[in-house]
């Protein structure tokens, strides 16, 4: 009798351990999925304000509804358009994961253009026929353009050279360099590191601070016609 008891408990113990282990796994699984569920719910819930806002505003505001419609149409029409613009690339093998080609939205480009026009008369300058003018006349106008456009650049973009070294100095491109930021030219053979002379320092937009644009604004108007009363 006395040796049966321990054997019973001994026999039960592995079962208990197994049960405990299973329940632990069960809990962990439950917590895991609950966590995911909570996160997903949160992610979805976070969108709730904008979803309900868009819904309400689309109902209330015809302009806005039109913009949303445009957005969906753009979204639907973008892919085939993007694909059709790259026939040259299509036959090439794709050894690396390809990026999705997307159209640059025209809006911020137009906003920047209107800023350049407002401050620096950029469009007036480019749209004018220059052949009939003397160099000094073009030069005088260029000052207006230079001063104003430079102000726009300083105010709305932070621009820094890609390479800080002086042009003409020797620089090295290590293995894994970003070919978009640093472009080797000329005798491009062998394996990196490449060493060569810095011909152009490059420019990088560190920060872009374009104005917020009201939904009602027609950004295609780059400069309004002025009528003095």
């Amino acid at each position, binding site marked *: 009798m006395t040796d049966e008891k321990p054997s019973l408990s001994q026999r039960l113990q592995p079962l208990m351990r197994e049960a405990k282990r299973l329940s632990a796994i069960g809990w962990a699984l439950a917590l895991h999925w609950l966590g995911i569920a909570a996160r997903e719910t949160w992610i979805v819930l976070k969108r709730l304000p904008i979803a309900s806002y868009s819904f309400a505003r689309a109902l209330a505001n015809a*302009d806005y509804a039109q913009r949303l419609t445009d957005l969906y149409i753009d979204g639907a029409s973008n892919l085939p358009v993007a694909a059709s613009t790259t026939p040259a690339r299509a036959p090439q093998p794709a050894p690396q994961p390809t990026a999705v080609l997307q159209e640059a939205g025209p809006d911020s480009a137009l*906003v920047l253009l*209107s800023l350049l026009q*407002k401050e620096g*008369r950029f469009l*007036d*300058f480019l*749209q*004018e026929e*220059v052949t009939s*003018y003397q160099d*000094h*006349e*073009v030069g*005088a*106008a260029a*000052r*207006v*353009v230079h*001063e104003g456009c430079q102000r726009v650049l300083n105010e709305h973009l932070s621009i820094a050279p890609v390479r800080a070294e002086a042009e003409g100095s020797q620089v090295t491109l290590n293995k894994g360099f970003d070919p978009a930021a640093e472009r080797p030219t000329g005798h491009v053979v062998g394996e990196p590191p490449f060493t060569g002379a810095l011909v152009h320092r490059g420019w990088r937009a560190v920060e872009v*601070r374009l*104005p*917020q*644009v*009201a*939904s*009602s*604004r*027609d950004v295609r108007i780059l400069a309004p016609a*002025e009528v*003095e009363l």
Partner: protein
Amino acid sequence: MSARYAIGIDLGTTHSALSYVETAKCEGEEVDQSILRIPQLTAAGSVEDRPLLPSFLYLPHPDEHKSGDLTLPWGGDPTRLIGEHARRQGLTTPIRLVSSAKSWLCHPDVDRKAAILPPEVPADVPQISPFEASVLYLSHLREAWNGVHPYDPLDEQDVTVTVPASFDPAARELTAEAAKAVGIENLVLLEEPQAALYSWVNDSVGRWRHDVKVGDIILVVDVGGGTSDFSLIAVTEQDGALELTRIAVGEHILLGGDNMDLTLAHVVKQKLKQTGVELDRWQLQALTHGCRVAKESLLADAELESVPIVVPSRGAKLIGGSIRTELTQDEVTTTLINGFFPEVSVEERPAQRARGALTKVGLPFAQDPAVTRHLAAFLSKQAGATEDLDGFVEHAHWASFLHPTAVLFNGGVFNAEVLRERVLQVLNQWLSAEDAPPARLLEAHDMDLAVARGAAFYAYARNHGGVRIRGGTSHSYYVGIERSMPAIPGMEPELHALCVVPFGLEEGSEPVMPPQEFGLVVGEPVRFRFFGSSVRREDQVGDLLEEWSEDELEELEEIQTSLPADKLKRSEVVPVRLQAAVSEVGTLELTAIPTNAKPDAEASDWRVSFNTRGASGESNND
């Protein structure tokens, strides 16, 4: 429990700014400042965050913009545009632009709560009052703040709003009222030159105690876009610790950087005229802008002989229609340096032309453009400013002006080193002529934002310990009393001045009350003539001046009170005494207290208010 943020608002004549400090992150005099970026319309339908809010307000025509193009992040009022877009719209349509509202706020001849701005406009252009404009600028700042700090709204923070040191009690009260109107509860006012000095103290992170010593007199010269403001601050000692005491402030001078740019533009315009080129108003504005840019390059580099300026055509033909000219170093030197900062002797005084018959009410712009001459007048007038100050050497009796030992510059004009040097050089010439040591330059940073930063520092230091500039009222104040005497034809009755507020009455100190009694008629408004003096430091409350020299006392707008008839019998004569106190906010409060009634009962009913309605507004005012 104090607020989470200490906020400083520089409500400037041409620009406003807001700086703030998170109090929990500060330690002693190490205060970390941030500048609020203020969303504003920069063009129709385009909103940008900028550190400065141009203090311009534009009242657009209903058809001038597309509805929706004037939306701000917080909605905003599409009939009142504030900021950069307002300023730009005003360049082409000046009749709808409100500018320099702050200067109008202390204009003694107009009703500051009447819709008078923009002045002289066609009938259907809306107008607003200078007071309302201040409220609108402040509420724009409030919305900008609340947008970024939704859980710490502006009205729950400690806020300091700056005013020119030369603002009179009425203008200070209007500023405080405007701040209250946008919901700012924990408000104090601070004089701008003091704010500039606080900013300097803040930047020095405690080192300022080594840079100045007891006995120093710091001259703060603040030349902003529209006004020039001077103050003298003495370094004193209290219980072994350095203290700062503001001992004098200058007069209100409407003269600033904008005058300088405009003057240069006119010089260049004349030059163009000689070559047969006429400029219209739009081109003159473009030229003024060009001159400002060119001036900055020329002032920064004395080697530069000239900078070309191109006045662009207004139409789309840029190359064909632009006018090319240039601004030379010579013109800048003659016009700007010698015109606005001439080398003068300390005896010289600003020229006062007799004003022609005024056909319209305008701002009382300074008639003499020479900042140095205004400075000479200020320092000479304040020659005795340190007489009553403990620990100061007796001022030599032959000294014709107060000798500052250090100078702090502030305001956008002094971003140009040449101009700082020029003022210092002129001052040091005056000093050496009286065998005094030359004044030192206190290095300041960021002349455009220093006032807002200093104000935020003060908002913090007030509640968390830190250096304070003492000073109290910058003037002593008097009410005029006509002596009763038999009428003599052709002679005005003799006027005496009763001192009701002594010089340097500090904020929150015990109210003072002269013993003299006045008889007020219940139910009828009573007006007193009101005077201020920036030099009579020794007058005590209750002193009756029988005579004074003309430049000692300056007549301010009159003050008025009306005893309500509901508590007392109408047309009963009640004896009252005038009590004066400086509130914690920093405004002067005068109360008429009936000597036979309980003084604490209904004290607000007996408030003596400053007349902000202007001399001409009296007749049509109820």
